[in-house]
């Protein structure tokens, strides 16, 4: 499935929100890997002035002792001060909420943000933590065996994987 219409929805919602936002312009941070792809597109379309940040949350995961370290850990890169900054945190698919918790923990190790808003392309049922998106284009109701996965970066494709 082509995720472009979903990205279009997010661009429109975010643009309206940014226009009304009273504070200084927020910084956008994408979570590796899918979230960073989405964030790249949103960042370009919205013409944000602060450079895009990326987070690899491998060092902050809560399943490290069960799964070990992901072999393709990338360096996190936040090219701005996090302290007192409004942050738009971007991921591809929101499921259990554990990735977002880890990402927030990592952000706080860079400073105390003024606020964090969560932007996701898609969300599905199965939350295990009290975390909800502020901006979300697509909603799915799936069985635990089903998965949605974003592949990319060019072209981006959102796939529904059933066993």
């Amino acid at each position, binding site marked *: 499935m082509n995720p472009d219409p979903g990205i279009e929805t997010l661009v429109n919602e975010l643009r309206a929100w940014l226009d009304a936002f009273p504070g200084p312009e927020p910084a956008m941070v994408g979570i590796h890997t899918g979230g960073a792809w989405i964030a790249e597109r949103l960042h370009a379309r919205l013409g944000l002035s602060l450079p895009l940040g990326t987070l*690899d949350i*491998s*060092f*902050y995961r809560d399943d*490290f*002792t*069960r*799964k*070990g*370290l992901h*072999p*393709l*850990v*990338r*360096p*996190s*890169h936040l090219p701005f001060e996090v302290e007192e900054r409004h942050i738009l945190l971007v991921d591809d698919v929101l499921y259990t909420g554990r990735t977002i918790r880890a990402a927030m*923990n*990592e952000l*706080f*190790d*860079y*400073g105390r943000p003024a606020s964090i808003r969560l932007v996701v392309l898609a969300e599905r049922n199965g939350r295990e933590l009290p975390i909800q998106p502020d901006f979300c284009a697509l909603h799915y109701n799936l069985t635990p065996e089903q998965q949605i996965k974003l592949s990319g970066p060019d072209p981006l494709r959102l796939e529904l994987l059933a066993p």
Partner: protein
Amino acid sequence: MMHVPQPGPLPATQQLGPDGRLRHFLTVEGLSAELLREILAVSESFMSVAAQPVKKVPLLRGKTIFNLFFEPSTRTRTTFELAAKRLSADVMNMNISASATRKGESLLDTLRNLEAMHSDMFVVRHAESGAAQLIARHVAPHISVINAGDGRHAHPTQAMLDVFTIQRNKGDVRNLRIAIVGDILHSRVARSQIHALNILHAGEVRVVAPKTLLPADVEQLGVHIHHDMTSGLRDVDVVIMLRLQKERMSGALLPSEHEFYRLYGLTEERLAVAHPEAIVMHPGPVNRGVEIASEVADGPRSVILEQVSNGLAVRMAIMSMCLGARPGGTA
């Protein structure tokens, strides 16, 4: 040349878990190029932790790491300690020579006691070759052992941080000429470097040393041997100087330090035959005026202090790869 027996190559299976991931890190010998490249890639990620205002990640929270140093060391012990702390592990430094063994407790009794304190990892430095392997064979199954230098045998984390430093400065080692200079005979660092560089198919690895400071089996290590600096350093991209290990010298291997410096000391003039952008490395501590001139050690081509910072990231990578590999988890 002097013959020093070395522990045989270790079956890779002793270092790897059933899933093929690192369990112990005792020597680079027998490990795959793929695994070494994975260590280098994970190390690169840990470099960003040093850029965080909070230089700490929660990866090894709740893990207990014992630094077992049977031989004095400041730098290596400190970087292992700091690496463990940056991973949020609890770390204990045991200076064993000064404690239990002096009261007659056997090594294995000491280990059993530390295991009873629910430790997860031993970082071992010992003057005897093979000590870390021996400990790895006898520890409880949930404990990882990292070799922080054993006798003249291996110093695998140092070798990995050196390869990491080379790669960051000069790119893929396959395209590089690398010279290792000085006291190869006593150097576990050189041995581990040579194995790591060969596994990663380095372009050309040279050793430059007098005959008396080369091990008898040096030809079998797959290196080019040079006895003089002018031929040894010609066109190299990387010069690795080794510390002259005066404390390990027995007998008359060298006429004098002064004579060594005259023939093998790295000076600006000697370095002139190397590639103009060659980098200079040294595992430390540096003997200024013995193996290297101060002007070179502190000069623009020196990456000696960068090696120290990189060592932290590489040790964080290796520690977390060993402790995260437990299927089912022990935490």
